[in-house]
């Protein structure tokens, strides 16, 4: 039995002995892990979509598209993810946009990581040599045909490893959504910590889980890369 404070004049609660139901609390952390995975997957999908839109926008022929894409990228890379989450969750409702915590989390994470990935898209496209564009012209392919059939397939391979890193960054950034009351893995670990009084066990557990997720992402990306690079060996120096 824990000691009672002799000086407290308020009634003491709870007469049951205090026992920790670890399997229950671990399953609580696993529920958090599900939220973390959801956020990572949906955030990555959103990031991928906006990355291509903004990345292609950056190299568009139209100044207005370039300008818009640059503004988006600089804004989201410039402000901290914390500020963005807070805006999505607490300030957008004042503008009449009320998102569920999950939506707000996905939105902020996706747009934030998407801004970084957009630069990856742009860089990869530019890394395909000018001579490939010239070969397209010599073969009379249109801009769009050239982009779709010749440039993007090559650029994709260049992007892939960095995309993997971006996805891991996104995974790690999900831990800050506890700020907007989203019950992700870190948040649940904190709950478990408050409820059980143990710090080491919940945090060691989630560190392990985060690392496993990160490894899964990098293995997945590497497998994809190998799959796509077949027959292309020796092309890039």
């Amino acid at each position, binding site marked *: 039995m824990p000691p009672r404070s002799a000086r407290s004049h308020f009634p003491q609660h709870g007469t049951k002995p205090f026992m920790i139901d670890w399997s229950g609390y671990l399953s609580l952390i696993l529920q958090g892990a599900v939220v973390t995975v959801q956020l990572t997957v949906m955030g990555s999908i959103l990031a991928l979509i906006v990355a291509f839109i903004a990345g292609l926008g950056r190299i568009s022929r139209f100044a207005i598209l370039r300008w818009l894409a640059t503004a988006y990228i600089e804004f989201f890379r410039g*402000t*901290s993810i*914390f500020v963005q989450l807070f*805006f999505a969750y607490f300030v957008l409702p004042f503008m009449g946009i009320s998102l569920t915590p999950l939506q707000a989390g996905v939105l902020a994470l996706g747009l934030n990581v998407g801004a970084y990935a957009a630069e990856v898209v742009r860089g990869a496209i530019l890394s395909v040599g000018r001579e490939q564009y010239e070969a397209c012209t010599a073969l009379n392919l249109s801009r769009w045909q050239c982009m779709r059939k010749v440039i993007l397939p090559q650029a994709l391979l260049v992007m892939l490893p960095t995309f993997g890193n971006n996805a891991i960054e996104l995974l790690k950034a999900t831990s800050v959504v506890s700020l907007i009351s989203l019950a992700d893995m870190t948040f649940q*670990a904190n709950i478990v910590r408050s409820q059980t009084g143990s710090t*080491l066990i919940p*945090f060691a557990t989630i*560190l392990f889980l985060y*690392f496993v997720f990160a490894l899964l992402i990098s293995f997945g990306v590497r497998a994809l890369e190998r799959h796509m690079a077949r027959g292309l060996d020796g092309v890039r120096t």
Partner: protein
Amino acid sequence: MEWDWNFVWQIFPTLLQGVKITIIATLLGSVLAVFVGLAIALLRRSPNRLVSTTTGFIAEFIRGTPLLVQLYFIFYVLPDIGILLPPLVAGVIGLGLHYGTYTAEVYRAGIDNVPRGQWEAAKACNLTARQTWTRIILPQAIPPMMPALANYFIAMFKETPLLSAITVLELMNQAKSVANTYYRYIEPITLVGVFFLTISLISVVVLRWLEQRYGRIER
């Protein structure tokens, strides 16, 4: 909720206090990251397989897990084994270790990018290993790293709000504290956003300059 300029002026000095801590944490964290990164990069090149793989694993682990959880660990778990660090020190160590694993990659890429011909020419000139590193390889490897390193320092700067989890009163924590005192969120959070954006925009200019100054090396 309406925007209130009076309130903005009222809280401004408090937020500046937070800015100071944020900048101190970033600077100290950067210095640590530069050395941690170099250490990791060199240990990973060690001919001793045990040293190189262990370093590699630890670096991957630190890089693959959230800084927030690492900070909790350093601050709340380490005291159990007798390591009691003040909040700011714990925060700087967390930032330095975490970003050290990133800068290690920058070092590695920078060194790998020096063409093999330069190593060979150094050998043909009969330079020693030490002379080769200090006279030939590092002078060529480091300047192109500058933009990438600077990028990580900006990223680190934007992650300092995490330190509020270990009671460091940096900018975000000050803003929250102010907000909680007056029940007004829009102004402090917006100011924090503006502050980060300003620093970032300035750093974009600095980065461009770094890229121009150091980014390319003419061969």
